């Protein structure tokens, strides 16, 4: 009898007591999650109405933000997009609070580490966002300049510039996150150094004649171009 009591019943009782102790936490977790979802939905609707009342979409259309969103694949209006974003932030915040309410040591440790890591994530995200914006900006500037200079592979020049700027920002973001801190930097330096060295060797040794012909053709073409558009027509 004692054996059955010790081996089967007592563990069940301890488990049951543990469950009874944990139950309020679980209920708090569920309640907080529900409150978060409801509050997030309500705030989303409220903000949507406020944004529409102040004609945010019209202003966005006027200053070109709407076109920018469409180009980034975001089909909804700016009001809906921002309202939904606010709603999700509220839900996420309540989810984190709800997880802490469970009072599970492992989860608490994970959350602590997560919150300590959060500033790095935020900084990396900001770097990536700005990197994306700058890569588009410089890529477009290079594309337009190349087209106006009459470079046949203008599209490739624009894409290359865009890619390089984004890779630089991605490298910085990864360094911020501590992912392969030195590895990424060294890999980046090796790849770019390698490309430049390869080009230098190709033009310097392998393709001396080709490089000379290429440069000569370009110089001749530029001189001819200057004659055509600069020497004869005064646009002003």
């Amino acid at each position, binding site marked *: 009898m004692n054996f059955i009591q010790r081996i089967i019943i007592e563990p069940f009782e301890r488990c049951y007591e543990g469950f009874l102790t944990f139950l309020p936490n679980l209920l708090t977790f569920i309640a907080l999650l529900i409150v978060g979802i409801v509050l997030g939905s309500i705030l989303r609707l409220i903000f949507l109405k406020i944004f529409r009342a102040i004609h945010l979409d019209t202003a966005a259309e*006027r*200053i*070109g933000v709407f*076109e920018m969103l469409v180009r980034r694949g975001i089909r909804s209006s700016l009001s809906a997009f921002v309202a939904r974003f606010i709603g999700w932030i509220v839900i996420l915040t309540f989810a984190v609070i709800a997880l802490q309410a469970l009072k599970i040591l492992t989860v608490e440790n994970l959350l602590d580490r997560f919150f300590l890591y959060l500033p790095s994530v935020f900084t990396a995200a900001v770097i990536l966002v700005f990197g994306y914006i700058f890569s588009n*900006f410089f890529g*477009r*500037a290079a*594309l*337009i*300049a*190349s*087209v*106006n200079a*009459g470079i*046949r592979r*203008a*599209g490739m020049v*624009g894409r290359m510039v865009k890619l390089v700027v984004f890779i630089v920002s991605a490298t910085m973001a990864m360094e911020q996150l501590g992912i392969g801190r030195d590895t990424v930097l060294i890999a980046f330096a090796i790849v770019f150094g390698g490309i430049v060295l390869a080009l230098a060797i190709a033009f310097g040794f392998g393709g001396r004649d080709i490089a000379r012909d290429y440069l000569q053709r370009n110089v001749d073409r530029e001189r*001819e*171009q*200057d*004659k*055509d*558009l*600069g*020497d*004869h*027509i*005064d*646009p*002003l």
Partner: protein
Amino acid sequence: MHIPERGTERYVGHMFQTLDNGGPKTVIKRQDVQARLMQIGEADILVGIPSYNNAHSIGHVVRAVQAGLAKYFPDKKTILVNSDGGSTDGTIDVVHQTTIDDFKSILVAHRFESFSKIAIPYHGLPGKGSAFRTIFEIAGALNVKACAVVDSDLRSITPEWIELLIKPIIGDGYDYVAPLYHRHKYDGTITNSIVYPLTRTLYGKDVRQPIGGDFGFSGRLAGFYLTKEVWESDVARYGIDIWMTTTAIANNFRICQAFLGAKIHDAKDPGADLSAMLYQVVGATFDLMEEYPQTWKHIASTQAVPVFGFTYAVGLEPVNVNIQRMLEKFRLGAHELGPIWENILSRDTIDFLTGLADTPKEDFHMPDSIWVDIIYSFALAAHRKVIHKEHLLKSLTPLYIGRTASFVIETWEASGSEVEEKINKLCEEYWRSKRSFSERWQ
């Protein structure tokens, strides 16, 4: 002569001007310049010549100006100002050394004594506008009554130009004299396809050469120009000409035109970037639309502008054009810049341009209606800040080149008067679309 302190108000010509406290950006604060201005005291007429590495051509311009002042304004106190952009070829030395020794050869009986010269490098952003700013400042400091500016690379300038640019101001009370030239039908393509039609349509004044480069203006107007804070913008560069003309029109200064004959000048600097030039001129034009919407929105007709001078026919130097290269540049733009143009132009216009890019030279034609739609759409895109302004305006270059190629192909056999008729029709198209453009401008 009075050189005021910064942060004070001063009387320039007939109006007050406030000087900012932003530091010595003005060249007339320099001690040597102040000493020279003190020495001169006051002047009646000022002629300004902006320059940059024009040693080989500026001598002729200086002689023509000096002869013009001696011949037509012998009783006035006159000054020539060379505002230089840091030339390294001795331009300033040429200005100092150039003088007319034999006045009898230009039919001036008496020696001309009240003539002074100042040749100085200007301060500020490198460009024609900054050079003009220095000229305006010196005009204000010397309290001159009438000014003129002429380009330093002119080969066709004669002493009569000075009379024609100055006389309407001194004798007839005008404030602004725009030039009127006979030019080759393919010269002045930005003027003919964009700036002239826009000025005529938006501001209602038929100023045929609004960015001609050689202007006359009163001391009062020079003082007014100095009150504007535009010297860090495109106005400091090639935008100065359209800014001067539009500012004079929009602020109800009295304007007229002077027929100067042919405009023949040295070849443009081969390093000068066409797209940068287009960006500065069109950028300044669009900025002026932002500044004066209440003026241009209410203009419903074009008024003729009085013309001074005896109009005559002149022979013009031939112009060579490489249409094939122009078409290649347009096609490259149509192929690569489509996604950018989609933010600016209508679907129909994009489709038309895509089709045009595949059209052979013989059938290549960009109608006036499409071109006007392009210009108004770019103006609206600049107004709404759809994309970065420099990207927007520089992406206009292939379209402008395509339009120029179309114009050259269509007018290959046309005479000068037929080309003028075609430009008039383009202006009518700008008029037809003005109402819808004005309504879309919020």
